[in-house]
């Protein structure tokens, strides 16, 4: 995966056998395949073009998108976000790990909402590259924080 540090690739954190396959049906390049409906997905980073359709489609919200090296020691991480209010680009937020523990401050790079995402927004955070394998979400914004 290290040959595309500036383009990025999907991270599939689907940890159990679940009868589910939207990740394979939305992937237009065949980068994600499942041998059976229940098997865990297999991912070929060489085929990933970075469209992020799988990140929005996964019903388990278990797919993330990482750009490991943005330059200047920064990385970015993209995740699905279905809470309101949404963050806005440029906003300073708290990046958290898989258990919601605070990791580091982060800046919102983009909030992507497309009709094909079916009301799931994709939030991209810029973070120090050293935290790219820990950060998976942002501390949820309460209504008064926006």
């Amino acid at each position, binding site marked *: 995966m290290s040959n595309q540090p500036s383009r990025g690739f999907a991270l599939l954190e689907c940890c159990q056998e679940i009868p589910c396959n939207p990740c394979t049906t939305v992937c237009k390049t065949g980068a994600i395949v499942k041998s059976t409906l229940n098997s865990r997905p297999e991912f070929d980073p060489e085929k990933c073009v970075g469209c992020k359709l799988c990140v929005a489609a996964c019903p*388990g919200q278990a797919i993330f998108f990482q750009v490991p090296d943005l330059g200047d020691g920064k990385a970015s991480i993209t995740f699905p976000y279905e809470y309101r209010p949404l963050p806005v680009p440029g906003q300073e937020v708290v990046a958290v790990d898989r258990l919601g523990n605070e990791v580091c401050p982060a800046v919102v790079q983009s909030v992507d909402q497309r009709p094909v995402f*079916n009301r799931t927004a994709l939030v991209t955070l810029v973070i120090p590259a050293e935290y790219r394998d820990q950060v998976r979400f942002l501390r*949820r914004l309460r209504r008064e924080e926006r």
Partner: protein
Amino acid sequence: MRTTDLLVIGSGPAGLGAAIEGARCGAKVLLVDENTKAGGQLYKQIHKFFGSGAHYAGTRGFQIADILLQEANDLGVETLLDTRALGRMDNGCVSILHQGKVEAVEAKKVILATGAKENALAFPGWTLPGVMTAGAAQTFSNVHGTLVGKNILMVGSGNVGLIVSYQLMQAGAEVRALVEAAPQITGYLVHAGKIQRAGVPVYTSHTVVEARGTDRVEEAVIAQVDEKFRPIPGTEQTIPVDTILLAVGLNPRTELASMFRCRTTYEGALGGILPVHDAWMRSSDPNVYVCGDLAGVEEANTALEEGRLAGIHAAVSLGYTAPHAQARMEELQESLRSLRSGAHAARRLACKERIMEKGGACHV
């Protein structure tokens, strides 16, 4: 008196699946539901569903309900809402309460898709306002637009507890903790991951031991449990909450099946006492089919497939023919096997095989 080929009772995913396939085969179908809206629990599901493309995977539950309802309407299914099936009369007709009047329905085949109801959990203080089932809170929030509380303790880490926690946070509530008596999370870990990333602490091997408050819940006491699920003295923690939600399983709604004298069995992992059925969803009475959560509490996608199977088989056994009906039934049986073949579903598959063995033995 109304007459019909198929009477389908319950318009959740199983009932809709049965009605759609029965009508597609050419049978006259009457679908009744006690609610004012069809779709069963699908209408309360605002999250994207698992499954394959064939099961509308990635589509939100309420959107699946809209698709199925449209299909049923297009196929000419007659639907009576706000209509309760009261029971079976001595002459074999089913009595329904419709617009304040009791009517008799003479149906050649009856398909029961009555669903399940939530289990409760008794503990000191459980009658205080603020203690309710997770499904009740979900109905308040997603149907009536009302949050039942601001600070919540969720009891149970099955998919209902995990998903309702997520949805209530989306609606603006805080889930202060989720407790699970088992030593591990029992629902899908990806559902758990959603609420854990959002900061909800999940306490496994823990349960609620007391609700405290004067006029309503003001705090919950939780405690660690031993391997026999007994609270361990000295491990109590107090959490300030205004609401305690119980997501501790469901059990099949078997009242009508009992009136039809359907033979029953017990399968704890599928919710308890339930009617046996064969591989085509026939109960011990060849004119009565059972499907969905009534036939074992599982998921919406299995309910839909079971309903479809029942609908086709009932229509075909009345002499209706649809192209590839036989192949379609085999496909549905295969699809059900596939949906139950993941590691997470192995226990459900074993239960279903026992049920079908007992159900099949009724028809030799």
